[in-house]
């Protein structure tokens, strides 16, 4: 197990270039502590798999260094890095039994049968594979095959890090939940450094102690699941995390007021030194919006659509042409299509050129 440090890493698939646009992965510095569970979250094509392959050594970065503890491994081939990686689709050795598949990484490293056998059986129990242990791997379902892949990643106790590249994509939703909690359990038990790539926010938020959100080849925020939810540092994080995502609406600032079109909203904070011509937006989670009967102190809106999704309702409201999602448990007391929209000011953020802008408390 090791601390993983990335020093000024950048990668371009077309080779060294001066133009930053050529880089699939923009310059980044990052340290992952030993034994941590991290998630790399971002949409397809944001560079998260590139980053993962740089750590595992399948790719050599155009710039920068990768350190395991304090050893520079940037140019070390994969097999010498002592890491494990689990891929998006199950990779199994067809002609081997489940036992042989799980034992393969240990066998290749010259472990004896006495060392291998108890370890394989222990792991198979944790993954619920013990009854298929002597079945040919190719006869199993996709779920079971992916569990074998996971097992091969977890079998070695001495790995520097375990990398997961969207490992639960092919798994049924119900089993996904189960496997995720098994991974969490295994993490607690063995204390591996785990790095988990996903585009599924639920997966990232339940798995990781700390989530790294990536967007267009750059890291936009690193934080705990709460921090990502409460204080997105970038509008992308606001959109991407939460269901539905954050309401982000263009506005103008006048003293301690935000003007959404010609409606004023008192923010309770002042924002100074905003560059002229910058894009200014106001962002608030649907959970922190509330609807009150019309005529109250909120913004006058009309209700356009109500989606009842069980525990709560998502209400779509319109303020002229601006749309907001509001999450509420009850819609009682509302009559007609008109309502007033009330903001929770402690959770209202201002974004300048997509980045969080912190105001002065009055």
């Amino acid at each position: 197990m090791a601390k993983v440090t990335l020093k000024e890493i950048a990668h371009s698939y077309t080779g060294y270039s001066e133009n930053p646009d050529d880089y699939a992965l923009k310059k980044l510095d990052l340290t992952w502590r030993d034994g941590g569970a991290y998630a790399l979250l971002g949409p397809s094509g944001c560079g998260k798999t590139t980053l993962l392959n740089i750590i595992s050594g399948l790719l050599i970065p155009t710039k920068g260094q990768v350190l395991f503890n304090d050893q520079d491994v940037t140019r070390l081939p994969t097999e010498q890095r002592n890491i494990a990686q689990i891929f998006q689709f199950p990779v199994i050795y067809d002609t081997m039994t489940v036992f042989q598949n799980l034992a393969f990484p240990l066998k290749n490293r010259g472990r004896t049968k006495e060392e291998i056998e108890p370890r394989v059986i222990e792991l198979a129990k944790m993954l619920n594979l013990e009854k298929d242990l002597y079945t040919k791997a190719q006869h199993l379902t996709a779920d079971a095959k992916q569990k074998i892949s996971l097992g091969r990643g977890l079998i070695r106790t001495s790995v520097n890090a375990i990398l997961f590249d969207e490992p639960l994509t092919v798994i049924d939703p119900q089993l996904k939940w189960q496997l995720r909690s098994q991974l969490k359990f295994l993490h607690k038990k063995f204390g591996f450094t785990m790095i988990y790539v996903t585009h599924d926010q639920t997966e990232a938020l339940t798995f990781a102690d700390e989530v790294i959100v990536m967007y267009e080849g750059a890291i936009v925020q690193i934080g705990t699941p709460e921090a990502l939810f409460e204080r997105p540092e970038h509008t992308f994080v606001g959109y991407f995390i939460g269901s539905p995502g954050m309401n982000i609406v263009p506005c103008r600032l006048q003293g301690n007021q935000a003007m959404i079109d010609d409606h004023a909203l008192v923010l309770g904070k002042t924002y100074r030194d905003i560059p002229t011509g910058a894009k200014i937006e106001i962002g608030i989670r649907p959970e922190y919006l509330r609807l009150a009967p019309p005529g109250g102190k909120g913004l006058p809106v009309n209700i356009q659509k109500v989606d009842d999704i069980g525990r709560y309702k998502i209400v779509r409201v319109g303020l002229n042409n601006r749309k907001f999602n509001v999450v509420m448990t009850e819609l009682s007391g509302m009559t007609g299509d008109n309502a007033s929209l009330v903001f929770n000011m402690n959770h209202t953020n201002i974004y300048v050129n997509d980045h969080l802008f912190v105001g002065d408390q009055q």
Partner: protein
Amino acid sequence: MIAKQTNQKAWFMVLPVFLVVAFSAVIPLMTVVNYSVQDTFGNNVFTWVGMDWFKDLIHSERFHAAFLKQLMFSGIILLIEVPLGIVIALAMPKKGWGVPVCLIGMALPLLIPWNVVGTIWQIFGRVDIGLLGHTLASLGIHYNYTQDPVAAWITIIIMDVWHWTSLVVLLCYAGLCSIPDAYYQAAKIDGASRLAVFRYIQLPKMQRVLLIAILLRFMDSFMIYTEPFVITGGGPGNSTTFMSIDLVKMAVGQFDLGPAAAMSLVYFLVILLLCWVFYTVMSNVGEESSNGGK
């Protein structure tokens, strides 16, 4: 309740297939069956002989010899072409300008007509003017495929390897290219050796195409006619008289239509049987027991 209407018009749709199959396979095969149970001395006069030709054939030493030679030939070329094809396919580049160069180079021998291949090697191996034959002779090596059965066999086998290994290569290459990168990456991470990658990833993933390659090469080699006919004409002596050459000698040379027809049928059934055995065995490889030991 409405009675289900029967519409027999659909039969007209399958009629073309019936006709094509009838004219291309069934009718010619039936004429052969017809010949195999009759005797003729020409003039379109036939006499019924029952199973006599088959009985003769089963006990004929000439047939045994040709059959054995045929099996040996197919066995040898499979043993050479399949491993060689795999090795070449593994060595071929996976990307870059080398790919089209290799593919075209590999495909070239396959495009040459069979009797041209025969002629090329017939001339190539001649002691008086052939590059190979003359060079060997000047080096003092005794090589003459018109006199020495071993030399004749070696020539035909090398020719077949030259002509057909490409087919195995191309099929294996296609099989190799279809293996996702993740398998190689996983193998690296699992610390697998080069040999283990071949044994546990490449070979199992090539199994399907190898089955096709072996079947095709077996059938083709078992039916080989043109090339040995051009090079040696079945000689020296009868040393390269494979089944199809023997068959033609019998049917055309001696005009023994009955025995030749009986031989054709046996020949056909043998190929069918062996292909079935190959297919069954190969497609069961790796599927056999679901509880193979640890």
